[in-house]
């Protein structure tokens, strides 16, 4: 069976706890100060079903790049390597034993081309915690603006080797570790970040957020979104959500829970009328988008193709949240809208 073959990314929230309550995170109002872990049995069920239903078959090479501007082996949402990420509204390294165990199980269960990644706030970034953490990518967010020098020193002290690739123009620090392929540190995160309204939970009118830049000024969304067509978000309580911003533990998002892995298979959940309708509403320009999406500024800039709903998407066209622009495409791909 290959009914999940179009899914490129799965986020799994391993447990609920986060040690921080940041201004830019809904956790400041919807506390995550208790740890409730996704049961072993359901985690194993998720991995088994991903294999069973053909999650993201191997796509070894992106479309041949024809000049330097188009060489993009990294970060391509739809055509890059399929990814399982252990992130959500939690701090995954807060329970490092659980994270290491889950990563190992995923590594043993899923095909070798699946990228295993997570984000961390860096509070648990120690040599001991990194050792034996067999991730492909670890993203570190410098929420306290400790800066570049601090993080270079911290990386070096914890057995990581900092690398410098100015050709990529990456606005952060890159490092490798004996167990982790790549560590990416976004230093001074609040200064670099472009905030999104987290599916309608945050407002740019909030006093504490006035100083942070908002993506596209958080105007009304007029462009389609490929996220629910290529992505699954599974929260700590087993809920399946169509987007990483939509939470199962917030009342205004309850209506957007697509199902629960404790009750149904991933295939049943993603093919349910509710899931199909949600995806469909987001495939048109200037459409009647679901409430959490109306002012959302999450805009993927890559090319997404192959979803069963026929939705093809070229993100570059929509980078500025505009429609009907006379955009010159960089390749031969014709959008089917």
């Amino acid at each position: 069976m290959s009914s999940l073959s179009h899914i490129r990314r799965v986020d799994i929230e391993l447990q609920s706890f986060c040690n921080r309550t940041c201004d830019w995170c809904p956790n400041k109002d919807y506390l995550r100060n208790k740890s409730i872990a996704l049961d072993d049995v359901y985690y194993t069920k998720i991995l088994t079903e991903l294999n069973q239903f053909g999650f993201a078959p191997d796509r070894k090479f992106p479309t041949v790049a024809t000049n330097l501007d188009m060489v993009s082996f990294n970060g391509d949402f739809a055509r890059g390597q399929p990814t399982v990420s252990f992130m959500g509204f939690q701090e995954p390294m807060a329970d490092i034993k659980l994270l290491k165990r889950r990563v190992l199980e995923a590594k043993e269960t899923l095909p070798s081309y699946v990228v295993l990644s997570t984000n961390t706030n860096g509070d648990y970034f120690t040599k001991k915690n990194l050792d034996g953490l067999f991730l492909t990518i670890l993203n570190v967010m410098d929420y306290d603006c400790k800066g570049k020098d601090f993080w270079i020193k911290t990386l070096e002290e914890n057995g990581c080797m900092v690398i410098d690739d100015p050709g990529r123009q990456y606005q952060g620090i890159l490092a490798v570790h004996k167990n982790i392929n790549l560590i990416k540190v976004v230093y001074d995160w609040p200064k670099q970040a472009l905030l999104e309204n987290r599916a309608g939970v945050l407002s740019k009118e909030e006093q504490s957020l006035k100083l942070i830049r908002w993506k596209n000024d958080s105007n009304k969304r007029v462009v389609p979104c490929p996220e629910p067509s290529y992505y699954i978000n599974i929260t700590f309580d087993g809920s399946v959500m169509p987007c990483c911003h939509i939470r199962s533990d917030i009342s205004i998002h309850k209506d957007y829970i697509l199902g629960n892995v404790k009750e149904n298979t991933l295939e049943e959940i993603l093919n349910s009328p509710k899931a199909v309708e949600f995806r469909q509403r987001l495939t048109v320009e200037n459409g009647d988008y679901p409430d959490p999406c109306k002012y959302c500024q999450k805009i993927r800039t890559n090319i997404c193709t192959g979803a069963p709903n026929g939705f093809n998407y070229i993100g570059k066209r929509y980078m500025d949240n505009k429609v009907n622009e006379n955009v010159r495409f960089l390749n031969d791909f014709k959008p089917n809208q």
Partner: protein
Amino acid sequence: MDYSDKIFIFYNKQTLEIIFIQEPLKTNLTPEKFLDERYLIEKKCIGLPKDNFDVIISDRESYRRVLKDMSSYYLRIDDVKNDIEYVLKKRAVSNPTYNVQDIKRVFTTEQIVEMYHEDYINFNLKNFLKSGYAEAVFFPLSEINIRLHMLTKNWNYFHNDRFLSDSHEDKRLLGQDIYKNGTYWPIIVSPLYGHNPRYLYAYEGTHRLISLKLNQREGLIPPDYKILCIKYNECYDVLVNSQRFMPLSKSYKARSLIEILYGNNVILDEQKYKESVEDCLSNNGKLKDDITLEWTVKSIGDSIFALQTYPHWLRDLIYPITDEIKPSCILNDEKLFMKWLNE
């Protein structure tokens, strides 16, 4: 004028030799400025008057279309039309690196040894280095930088050989093996596109380099350890992409298996095999034996292809029998290497 849909071709008007091609992206480059710039920096202009050179403005879309199948074409100047012409080669070189890895003949150990030591090292590598287009240098690890390229992929994925599988979890294992036994292939290094040419980055051998450096950080490999690198002075990405049509000032011979040059059809289809051999012979090539061809390397793209054919092809054949085929001493001993190169 907007040149965003054009390419500039800098060429010698007397010999019609194409010297440099550029897509004027993100710049306000004009053909006049491009001519001035290239004339000042191209070695092939030294001692010649500026009037000998000119710039042709051609269509970018056609160029990009051809680039997608770049190994199947060569470029020449059509001075009547004042444009470039894309000429289809008879020999259709497919992507040698990956797309034919699953279909291989069964080779004897002796054949693999011969391909590695004789065809790859003693013939292709030596001829390539003697062509003078790139140089071989034993660099300390500290002088080679690591690019982000491929680091977002699992180590046991792209080439599922024992070196990358074993070191998938502990990335130091590969380097420890290289330190003990040597490496099978040189590291390919070049500057980054548009960056300081003093800083060299690994374009082939990133995993090896990471592993060696991780060991060196922990004191398991001495600080003065050196590794053989092929050093290009221009960005390797540019050479394998937009510059790959550039003719070499001096052509030379390389050896490749017939299926690498003409596709796997030749293994299964006798007629295809015969046609391929005929084509090779008619292009100044010859048969070394019934499966290996000697062919003429004429362009940058050809030379990179010839050099990289065997590392990507042979690795899957050699790595299961590393007890029988060890890394070449020549590639792992600076004195021995220099002696070999000057023989």
